[in-house]
């Protein structure tokens, strides 16, 4: 059986992003398209997502002008391509608190958000440090924090402490502390719902940007290479990469980095009228293909 349909939904992209920012040590080796995506998980009477992207109203102009982010489309339009609406989404897993992953929570009025408690508390701790430590706070939008207050008051913010199994049937959360951020996490979908699954997927947030992070430059002689940006330690990033790859039976291509442009070479996909890609990883029993 296949319990969930899984789609990677592109909502914006940077056409030319330096490789050195993605894979540690790849200096002066050119650029690559960096898609911005979130994940849709549909099945078992559930509609869930991993991350929600950013709010273009607040950040769009700066991002477009300064960093070359192009083609942002709102969730209503992006999700509409596969026949769902933001209001329908009931569960959202936030891999980490950077604005481009949790910056659009207000567009999902009926969802409950899961985030690691450590991600919140360590950011807050960081804010108490002297200004000279401000690098540690980068990527956090104070406005997101204020929106999170509302979520919490409405009982729609669940702060998770460490790993949690079966948050939804067959879906587990795994803490990856002191890696890309203080309290990053990745999401495992056991798509056969088996405890010892033979059909697992990992949605890794920014714990890997590209497959080079998970299998090195030579797939025949794989190695882990850290990402280009870690608040925590690169050792932890590498050990987490190993943990993720092991959890999908050693097939690194079942670990899904949302910024990996080459997912299209591995899985069926299509381009929407807005020029954004939808990649279909799995189709639940009885579900219609969207690509």
């Amino acid at each position, binding site marked *: 059986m296949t319990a969930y349909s899984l789609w990677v939904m592109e909502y914006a992209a*940077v056409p030319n*992003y*330096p490789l050195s*920012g993605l894979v540690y040590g790849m200096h002066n080796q050119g650029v690559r398209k*960096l898609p*911005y995506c979130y994940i849709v998980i549909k099945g078992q009477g559930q509609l869930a997502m991993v991350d929600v992207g950013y709010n273009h109203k*607040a*950040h769009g102009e*700066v*991002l477009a002008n*300064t*960093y*070359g*982010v192009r083609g942002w489309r709102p969730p209503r339009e992006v999700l509409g391509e596969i026949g769902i609406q933001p209001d329908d989404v009931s569960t959202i897993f936030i891999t980490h608190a*950077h*604005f*481009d992953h949790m910056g659009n929570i207000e567009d999902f009025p009926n969802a409950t958000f899961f985030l690691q*408690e450590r991600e*919140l*508390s360590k*950011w*807050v*701790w960081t*804010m*108490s440090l002297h*200004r000279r430590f*401000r*690098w540690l*706070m*980068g*990527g*956090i*939008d*104070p*406005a997101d*924090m*204020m929106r*999170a*207050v509302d979520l*919490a*008051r409405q009982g729609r*913010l669940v*702060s998770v402490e460490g790993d949690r199994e079966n948050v939804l049937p067959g879906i587990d959360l795994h803490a990856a502390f002191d890696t890309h951020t203080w309290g990053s996490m990745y999401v495992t979908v056991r798509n056969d719902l088996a405890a010892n699954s033979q059909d697992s997927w990992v949605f890794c947030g*920014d714990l890997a*940007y590209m497959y080079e992070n998970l299998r090195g430059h030579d797939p025949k002689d794989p190695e882990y290479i850290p990402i280009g*940006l870690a*608040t925590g330690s690169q050792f932890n990033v590498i050990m987490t990469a190993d943990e993720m790859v092991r959890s999908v039976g050693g097939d690194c291509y079942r670990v899904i980095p949302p*910024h990996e442009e080459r997912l299209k070479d591995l899985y069926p996909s299509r381009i929407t009228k807005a020029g954004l890609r939808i990649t279909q990883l799995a189709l639940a029993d009885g579900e219609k293909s969207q690509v």
Partner: protein
Amino acid sequence: MIDDATATYIVETQKCFEDLKQVASQLAGLLVLAAAGSKEALPDHPMLVVAGELYREADDALRQAQPTERARKHFGHLARAATAIGVALKEAELHLRPLGRGLDVDRVLIPLRAGYTELERAADALPGFEKVSYERACCGGRR
């Protein structure tokens, strides 16, 4: 074009802007912890002391700022931001410490939101004031 006097104003008020943004972030962070029922949301959280000190520095800097005609709108937003964030801070000091998780967050959140909105308007009024430090997110490869 920015004239020299306005450029000087920008340089002199950047830290004030950053400090106010930091105080807003600190208060918002504390509210999230309190509202989410975090075990870190203790009534004697050191953040409030830090936020208070930073706010006083920002307020002092603001009093010494000399806005040009070009910068007057920016200064107005910055001054209103400082006032509103000051109210939020005072409310947090009064109510967060003794009550901890029992805090009525609106007492802090409403002025905090107003203050942050003014900061955003200030950032839009003149160049050189960033709402978010994008460099440390994954889009941060400045072109």
